[in-house]
């Protein structure tokens, strides 16, 4: 018999969490962003330490939460397969199953490929993976890749299957039937005593594939249920939280004014045949999971991706967009997802970052005017409430929220007619989030139209006037202002949908 029992006392991420995992079960862990799932997993695998007072027991071994370390976890049989799998696509299956573990050596201490192959073959057989050792990983389907990652995590346990396998959203990119095949093999391991923790956003999957489910919200463990005794609606309520139903919205007078943006029959990335209209003074929300095409839709409108088909109108004028500069001159702005990768010039000054989209304004009488650039930047820093000592300090010395406000200042100073927002408050604290929406709200009230993509449904419910639900690249539903609640959005986004598009 084994079982684990953990208590994490009051960190902000996790409050006094008790959790029990039985041997040989598949146990789902659910929760929204920031609910503490990842923290829990990281403590369990020893990457983070818990605060003093908590204990973690796995089988007969027990450790204080503030003394856990990766070595202890590993010895206790905890293995994690992460969302990105951490495999090497350009290497063979055999190499992927050997790196990190070590290759078999020949007598003169080179690699004995024969021995490696024997081990890998046996491993592939044991885990029933349909691949040969010499296959390049990149030529395998996502499901088989996930199996290889699991095999790699479990390979050194031999045939024993005792221990804890944590699968952290690793099936997010798999179509349901492939996920089911994967679960068939997980079932076999579980039957032999392996415990599996399955972290997922896809509640339908959780209910049909797991034995029990635990829900975390805001660092509090809400409880554990048998999947047979709970339905999807109840689970969504647990994940989102009951009181959120009452999030008050300023019911903006539904200004069905003239259209600010009109998109017709757009095909781009996984998006196909999407049409919608945004009125001036309206914030249109887009709800969808990763891979639903939500980001690609915005990038297509902005000219960052080339749409295969479709037409765009701004203020009733048809526009032709081939690159972002075209969209910008038509009055479109895009605040992209992932600031560090797509928006911030990390080593450049705050003033350069703020002026990046209006650089040519500062070329006067044959030279750049850094002083007037700095003066304007200082004015914007004040106006946007950016906390910075000087406008010449590098932007990466600022907090995430202040960086994001600087990016917002970069675009809003252009007085855009259409503001495209892709997760505008990612990695931003609550105070800055409210500020950001206040600033966007001002522009929208002044007659701009906005499209807001957010994976936080609470955010959509609070700020969008209307929400389109995007699934598999198509608009599945349109939710009018009065009906937008996090609960309703979760239902529409998560439920149903036999086919999930795999997109990376």
């Amino acid at each position, binding site marked *: 018999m084994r079982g684990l029992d953990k208590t994490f006392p009051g960190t902000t991420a996790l409050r006094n969490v008790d959790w029990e995992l039985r041997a040989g079960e598949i146990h789902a862990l659910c929760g929204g962003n920031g609910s503490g799932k990842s923290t829990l997993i990281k403590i369990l695998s020893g990457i983070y330490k818990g605060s003093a007072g908590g204990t973690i027991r796995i089988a007969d071994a027990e450790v204080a939460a503030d003394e856990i370390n990766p070595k202890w976890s590993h010895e206790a049989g905890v293995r994690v397969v992460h969302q990105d799998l951490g495999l090497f696509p350009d290497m063979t299956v055999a190499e992927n199953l050997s790196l990190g573990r070590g290759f078999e050596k020949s007598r003169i201490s080179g690699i004995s490929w024969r021995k490696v192959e024997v081990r890998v073959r046996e491993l592939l057989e044991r885990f029933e993976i349909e691949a040969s050792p010499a296959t390049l990983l990149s030529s395998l389907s996502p499901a088989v890749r996930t199996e290889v990652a699991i095999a790699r995590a479990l390979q050194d346990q031999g045939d024993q299957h005792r221990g804890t396998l944590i699968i952290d959203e690793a099936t997010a990119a798999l179509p349901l039937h492939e996920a089911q095949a994967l679960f068939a093999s997980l079932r076999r391991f579980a039957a032999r005593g392996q415990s599996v923790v399955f972290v997922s956003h896809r509640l339908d999957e959780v209910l049909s594939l797991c034995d029990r489910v635990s829900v975390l919200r805001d660092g509090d463990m809400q409880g554990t249920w048998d999947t047979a005794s709970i339905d999807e609606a109840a689970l969504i309520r647990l994940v989102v939280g009951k009181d959120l139903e009452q999030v008050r919205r300023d019911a903006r007078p539904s200004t069905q004014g003239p259209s600010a943006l009109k998109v017709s029959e757009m095909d781009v990335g996984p998006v196909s045949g999407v049409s919608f209209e945004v009125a001036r003074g309206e914030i249109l929300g887009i709800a969808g999971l990763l891979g639903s095409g939500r980001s690609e839709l915005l990038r297509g409108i902005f000219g960052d991706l080339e749409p295969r088909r479709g037409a765009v109108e701004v203020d009733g004028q048809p526009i032709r967009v081939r690159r972002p500069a075209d969209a910008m001159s038509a009055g479109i702005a*895009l605040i992209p997802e992932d600031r560090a990768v797509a928006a911030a010039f990390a*080593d450049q000054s705050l003033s*350069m970052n703020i002026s990046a989209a209006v650089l040519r304004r500062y070329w006067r009488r044959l030279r750049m005017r850094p002083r007037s650039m*700095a003066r304007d930047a200082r004015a914007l820093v004040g106006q946007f409430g950016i906390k910075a*000592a000087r406008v*010449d300090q590098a932007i990466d010395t600022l907090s995430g929220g202040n960086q994001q406000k600087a990016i917002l200042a970069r675009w809003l100073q252009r007085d855009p007619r259409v503001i495209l927002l892709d997760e505008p408050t990612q990695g931003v604290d609550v105070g800055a989030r409210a500020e950001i929406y206040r600033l966007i709200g001002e522009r929208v009230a002044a007659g701009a139209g906005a499209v807001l993509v957010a994976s936080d449904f609470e955010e959509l419910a609070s700020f969008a006037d209307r929400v389109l639900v995007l699934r598999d690249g198509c608009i599945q539903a349109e939710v009018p202002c009065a009906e937008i609640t996090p609960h309703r959005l979760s239902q529409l986004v998560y439920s149903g949908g036999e086919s999930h598009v795999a997109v990376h």
Partner: protein
Amino acid sequence: MSLSTDQITEPGAQTPLKPIKNRGSRPSLTSTAVNQLERLGLPLMLVVLVAFFTIDGSTGELFTSSANVRQLLSNQAVTGIVALAMLVPLTAGYFDLSVPAVAGLASITFAQLAGPAGYPAWVGLLAALAVSLLSGAITGWLVAGLRLNGFIVTLGLYTLIQGGLQYFTDGQTISSGLPDWVGSWGFETFLGLPRPFWVLVVAAVVVWYVLTHLPRGRELEGIGSNERAAHLVGINVRKDVWLAFLGSATLAGLAGLMITIRSGSADPASGPAYLFPALAAVFLGATCIRPGRYNVWGTMCGVYLLAVAVNGFTFLGADSWVSPVFNGGALILAVLVSTLMGRQRERLSGSD
């Protein structure tokens, strides 16, 4: 000198965060000193070296002789222009290793047309520049258009052009039939300084102006900082990078002309000698003036620091192995110091 956004920068830019209204408050004295030291480290080292070789009894007389000073200034003009040519695409984050080879190509083209082939000198000059531009256009197309790895493409081009020159010239230096002014032009002075040095000064000012005072130059720096973000603020990344390679090739062509004009001949093997000193100067330059960024005046300091050191050591009677050891050592030391200072700065700003 004015360097765009950094100009508003008083020393001590990267101090701990304070509310904006405290903008007037000065950073601590020590952090100001550290920053100034970092900014001016390389120029100071150059001054110290010059002073040392001037004062030292065994080298002073030779080192400060007008012949030596002229030789020093003039010799480094080509290295300096080659370094500037590498600096332009590097601002956008792209290596151009083909510069020395393209300079060699221009040098040979000019000498061959104006010499043995018997065309007027201006035809040779124009043809040399045209050939350089063509090579830059091709590199730009491969790197910016087809998105190939710039380091590899330009390394390939460097090798290919060097081989082609060897084949074309049979390894022989071209010197016959060149007009008389070729060979003597470079030894004449203007305002007391050798003409090739003035060419370098003009080239440096032009590159500095383009990089810091034209929007396109600021865009290149944006591309070098974050190419994806640059694309999303409407910068035409492909065009800018392509133009950077074109600019680089133009400077390479100019360097090539200077090689022929200064020596009165064209040696197909002359290019490679400039690769390391020029590259080292660019990297050394990024440790001063605007630490962490490739910049024109830092690069110029780098060129002359290496040249002065090697020149002085030669007068001290050092063996030939001393100069490569110094070049390599200086490069590692400069990077070491600037990296450690950068980390210190991060710690200062992160601790708040």
